[in-house]
């Protein structure tokens, strides 16, 4: 099957000599929801910039739905919708006008673009703001406007660079639902984010970039399965002064009523932990993951690279 995005030996060296990408090979399949992760300055935005024609590559090839960005530029660009990290619309233009103009740049006539803008603005809760200047919108609304703008030409590949940065939890959740629905309708989505919880709950595949190299490119399931250690925090009903660790796991008291529990999935399970706790007559009121699993993996992998 044709890949939604295929990068081969992609390199970028900026004029100041900084080598941002050192030969990246990446394939994102059609219909995928793909997370591209990396620390600040790792090369994520450069990669997205090259794919969306905002950054000139030094060498390598970029294919979007098999259209070569060098030789079939117009067809390749027509497949992509981009939601950049920074707000980059004309803040003095009315919201509706921003969408209609963007449609126009893709050759969509004004009446058709007006219709699509109406649908998108309604879907994203911005219809009431259509005649207002973009500068009057709140941060969350501006993010949604950028998503609407990226979708006006109904792209097959949507690229979002930190789409939920700085938006509150409620709006973030509603954006997740919107993106999930969009992906279910067939749009391939590539996402960069600093919220690893976001990547873990939305994406099926994941790539990790560190220092201009793709150090991981696999399915989310496969990646998470590699993580052997589990860390939980238990809230206890009664305070304890001390506690010894059993064979199956490691106990440590954070405070008299909060117990940190760690164990290896390959050798133990939560059942064993609870068995020990029952034997010792320690009552647990609630429990939670100590860290986001993906976050732990990410830190481990990027840490190794550095």
């Amino acid at each position, binding site marked *: 099957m044709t890949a939604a995005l295929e990068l081969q030996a992609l390199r970028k060296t900026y004029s100041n000599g900084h080598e941002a990408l050192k030969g990246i090979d990446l394939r994102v399949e059609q219909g995928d929801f793909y997370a591209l992760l990396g620390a600040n300055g790792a090369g994520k935005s450069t990669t997205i910039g090259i794919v969306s*024609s*905002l950054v000139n590559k030094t060498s390598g090839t970029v294919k979007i739905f098999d259209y070569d960005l060098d030789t079939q530029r117009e067809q390749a*660009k*027509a497949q992509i919708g981009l939601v950049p990290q*920074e707000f*980059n619309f*004309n803040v003095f233009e009315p919201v509706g006008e921003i969408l209609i*103009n963007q*449609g126009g*740049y893709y050759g969509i006539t004004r009446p058709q673009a007006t219709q699509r803008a109406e649908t998108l603005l309604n879907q994203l809760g911005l219809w009431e703001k259509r005649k207002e200047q973009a500068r009057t919108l709140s941060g969350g609304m501006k993010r949604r406007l950028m998503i609407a703008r990226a979708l006006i030409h109904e792209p097959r590949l949507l690229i979002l660079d930190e789409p939920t940065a700085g938006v509150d939890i409620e709006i973030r959740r509603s954006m997740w639902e919107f993106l999930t629905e969009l992906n279910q309708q067939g749009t391939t989505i590539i996402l960069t984010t600093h919220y690893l919880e976001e990547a873990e709950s939305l994406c099926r595949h994941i790539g990790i970039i560190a220092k201009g190299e793709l150090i991981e490119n696999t399915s989310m399931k496969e990646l998470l399965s590699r993580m052997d250690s589990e860390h939980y925090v238990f809230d206890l009903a009664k305070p304890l002064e001390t506690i010894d660790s059993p064979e199956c796991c490691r106990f440590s008291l954070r405070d008299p009523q909060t117990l940190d529990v760690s164990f290896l999935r390959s050798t133990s399970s939560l059942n064993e932990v609870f068995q020990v706790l029952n034997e010792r007559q320690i009552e647990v009121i609630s429990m939670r993951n100590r860290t986001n699993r993906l976050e732990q993996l990410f830190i481990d992998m990027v840490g190794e690279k550095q």
Partner: protein
Amino acid sequence: MNTQQKWTAYTTLLIREVLRFSRIWIQTILPPVITTALYFIIFGNLIGPKIGQMEGHNYIDFIVPGLIMMTVITNSYANVVSSFYGSKFQGNIAEMLVSPTPNWIILAGFISGGVARGMAVGTAVTLVSLFFSNLSIQHLFVMISIGLLTSMLFSLAGLINGVYARSFDDISIVPTFVLTPLTYLGGVFYSISMLPLFWQKVSLLNPVLYMVNGFRYGILGFADIPLWVSYLIIITFILILGSFSLSLLNRGVGIRS
């Protein structure tokens, strides 16, 4: 993109540009009209009668074509440089760069926006001049074509300035230190035949002279420079600056890292 889609992209850019300067007409259309009206009052009605005839015409009639051309030049330039740099500054130039719109259409859209403003202000100033002078147009086609071509040329110059500009200072340096002196010394207020021979020859190096004289020929039927030379110079400059602008956009100078 097929031809129809390219046309849509072009008209989108043009409408966007026209709406942009129309929305802020108090900043874009009104000031040049008021400034030029003051020129008409001071140089035409107050000082003009004391100067007498210039090449067989009343002084006010002589300066009207130059003043109209001056507003066309400065407004065409200002529109494109501010719009292009503004798009770079706010980042919304990316809206065009990520789209399949070819660079030559982006160029055509910005230039058409500059021409639209140049023509809008030029027409407004022409209407105002009717209150102060006895304007009778001798060659309408020449007047309109020289006006359009000059507007196109300075729109291109504005775009090049916008491409290289890195701050708001950069977009005001060229108009202040290059454009204004060239325009004032381009025969707007005098005929170069009044100058000593040496300065006449120096004046011939000023491209604005050819535009002002071509336009003056269109209105008064008289010019210091043969008409064909004016057309040749303007069209040559348009071709040079047009090719250069397109190459800047294709290479992504100032807009792609």
